[in-house]
């Protein structure tokens, strides 16, 4: 089975945080959203989203409630906590640093 590499995993965390920062979402919604945004990159192994969600929840960055949803039944809806919002900012900053560094490297290579 393709396991997410460390880089991909870190990126996945960032994508999840970013996605639910706009509005709280259930797992299915998050997967769909990332799929649309990333253009099919994550289409295989959607299940690998869940360990990441659970890890973020256990780290206290996001929290979850079972509530009625657009799926026609109650679903586990994830939302960002206050600390999660700060974490997102930190992750975005470090992502910016990393991507601009990579960008520089590629340009000068």
């Amino acid at each position: 089975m393709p396991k997410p590499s460390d880089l991909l995993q870190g990126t996945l965390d960032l994508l999840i945080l970013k996605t639910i920062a706009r509005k709280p979402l259930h797992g299915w919604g998050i997967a769909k959203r990332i799929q649309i945004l990333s253009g099919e990159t994550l289409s295989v192994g959607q299940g690998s989203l869940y360990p990441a969600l659970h890890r973020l929840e256990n780290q206290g960055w996001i929290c979850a409630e079972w509530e009625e949803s657009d799926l026609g039944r109650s679903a586990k809806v994830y939302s960002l906590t206050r600390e999660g919002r700060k974490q997102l900012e930190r992750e975005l900053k470090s992502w910016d640093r990393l991507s601009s560094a990579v960008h520089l490297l590629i340009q000068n290579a």
Partner: protein
Amino acid sequence: MRIIRIVKRRVHALLHRSSADAELQREIEIHIQQLTNEAIAGGMTDAEARSMAVREFGPVSQIKEECRETRRVSWIQDLAQDVHYGIRMLRESPGFTAVGVLTLALGIGANTAIYSIVDAVLLRAFPYSDPSQLVLMFNVPVKRPDALSSISYRDFTECRSHNTVFSEMAGNAFHDLTLTGAGEPSIVNTADVTPEIFSLLNAQPLAGRTLLPEDGKPGAAAVAVLSENLWRSRFGSNPNLIGQSIALDMRSFTVVGILPASFRYPDGAPRQDVWISVMQDPLFGPLTSKPGVRLLGVIGRLKPGVSLANAQAEMDAMGARFAQTYSAEDAGVTIRVRPYREAVVGNLKPALMILLSAVGLVLLMACANVANLLLAQATSRGREIAVRIALGASRARIIRQLLTENALLAFLGGVAGVLLATWAVQGLQRFLPAEVAQIGSVHVGGPVLAFALLLCCTAALTFGLAPALIATSSNLQTTIKEGSERAGRRGGQHLRSFLAVTEISIAMVLLVAGGLLIRSFALVTAVNPGFDASSATRAEVSLPRFQYSSPRQWTAFSNELLSRLHAQPGFGDSALAAPLPMDRQGQASFAFSIVGDPPLPPGKSTTADYQTVSPDYFRVMRIPLLRGRFFSEQDSPSNPDVAIISETLARRYFPNQDAIGRQMRFGFPPDSNVQRQIVGVVGDVRDVALSQQPGPMMYVPFAQAPLYGGEVVVRSPLNASSVAAAIRHEVNAIDKALPVTDIESFPDALGQSISRERFRTFLLGSFGAIALVLAAVGIFGVISYSASQRTNEIGIRMAVGAQRRDVLHLILGQGARLALLGMGIGVVLAILVTRWIASLLYTISATDPLTFGAVAVILLGVAVTACYIPARRAMRVDPMVALRHQ
């Protein structure tokens, strides 16, 4: 905030595990349902859509497992599960469990038992404040700093008043006095001290007071401090005893205080009853004014900040000054300072370290054995493990589970081992050498249990890690396809052979060490002590000096006693000597000079052991006469003084000349300058211990050099207790106030003199035996496992014409190769290692070829026998069945 949320979630997860799992299941189910719905909307059938959705989602059970692992509490649940599972596994294979637990119990038990001795002797704190400041001081000849002796009262007082390094110094000496009045007369173990010892050791009395500096001055009133034990047993805990008087050797002492039973000096001394000032002791008091008598053991407390080296430097200077100022007594002598702990336990440490290393090797072997068992088991569990990995369990998770099982096994082994150790320590008490028993009680207490627990954990990791790694490393697909038995075979077989070889080489080392000690012990016990100990009994009688004050009374008493013993029915010959060989108090050794020889240079002296004996002594002890004559009744005080010397003394100091007729000067202090004519030369006697080479000895007739008491030796075919009763009866018939002590059969006394040798021989011998058993089990396991793995191959060999004998040779050969390899390594290790025990060996070398050879034969024999059982089983393989196998 975040922390609280995390903790809340984890506690929730822990308590509501099943609901958390259900939620996870529901969450995943919703997702898959949505994927399915999409696919159906895209035009697939229900079934197609469902399988498409599952494929797109990914491996469900693995994802679930990953989700669960994000809850950090899962290790607690896992642990509970692993323990539960581990117990089930252990119960399912009782044979494996029993062998594993027993092996570990042997290893951990032996280690715990030895550690309890180490704890009692080397590690337990002494019951004095700041024991690290305590030092002992000895007079030593400048040339021989190891020949420790006591210090004279004069040198002690000089040293005490003039030194700058000790905050306090005190002296002590021990001997027996007779306590009379208030019931049967009894011997009390008396400590003659200088009063400072109590403040130095910070001893607090239970009642009354301890001795004060005034009590140590000449002319002070005679006072005594009693032990709590004596106060309770002898005086019925009489609260009014303080202020009353007691009689010691018929001299009256006023009781001023009681010391608690916990106070001992030195720590762990067997029994102390009375403390008095050395000045007032009926025997030792007068000796304090004789600067030639080295009477006192001396203890000092270093001033804070003063190092041992500082103290030694000052004592060197003081010793040099004494040697000049008091050249008559102190020429060639200096003062040596030793830390208290080193002085008390120093000579036990090397032997204990050897035992501890040996027993550590036993534990290593036990671990190797269990690792071997686990390897075989892990291999047969390969399929189960592979399936679990396929289902999403991580490798770390499985290793953790296997280690938990191992920890359970180690724990069971540890419990059994501690029980074994408790039992062994009780059994060992009898064998403990006298010094160990004196230092402290050996028992399995708190620190020892902590040590056992540490051993368990170490053992579980040692024997468990490698098998767990190997079990989880095998290739998944091969394992599931090929079935259980092949998995991990390559790595496992090598490791197993390696372990077996290691075990055999360790066993070789332990057996050689044990063998060397056993052989050396056999040589010691077979040695001729120079006298005949069989059917002889010994007993000690000492006379109170106040009542029996004149030498004439001493002689009269001994004559009376000997004639009464002679008339006793069932008694053979009897004699009296002071001291007898193997006296526990040690032997008396005095300087002598030979009349007519040039005087010795200053600082040098010749000494020999001294015994004063009744005329029949040599005949009764069956010590052979080599030249001249024995003593006779004519050697009385009114006739010329005579002496008999031993063969060694004659050979060493009268080389190439006849000693008979020559004159020597020596004697028991204070009569140390008596001139005596040598009338006989007798055979050498081992008087200190069986294991010690005989030294020069000189004998004098008791009638010419009587003492206040002595030891009788009686030859009798009667048993020891009736001999003892008869001796006691006769002594009390002369004076019913006289106690008889240390009654013992002579062979027992000989055995006692080599108790230390017996102790370590017994222990190292036992370790060797355990090692042999473990090695046999180890190689048996390896060979039988490998034989069962080769069933197929054996079947083919037999099908193409191999005979049963060939199969037998094949399997036995494999075992013998392992054994020989292990033994080869073991011999090299043994040669490297046994020199550490060279100093413990009696007359044989550390590479004694006979011992090495015998051990090799035994080990090879046991190893081949252990392989014979699986080899026979392999020999009986039916080729048809074997070929169908797998």
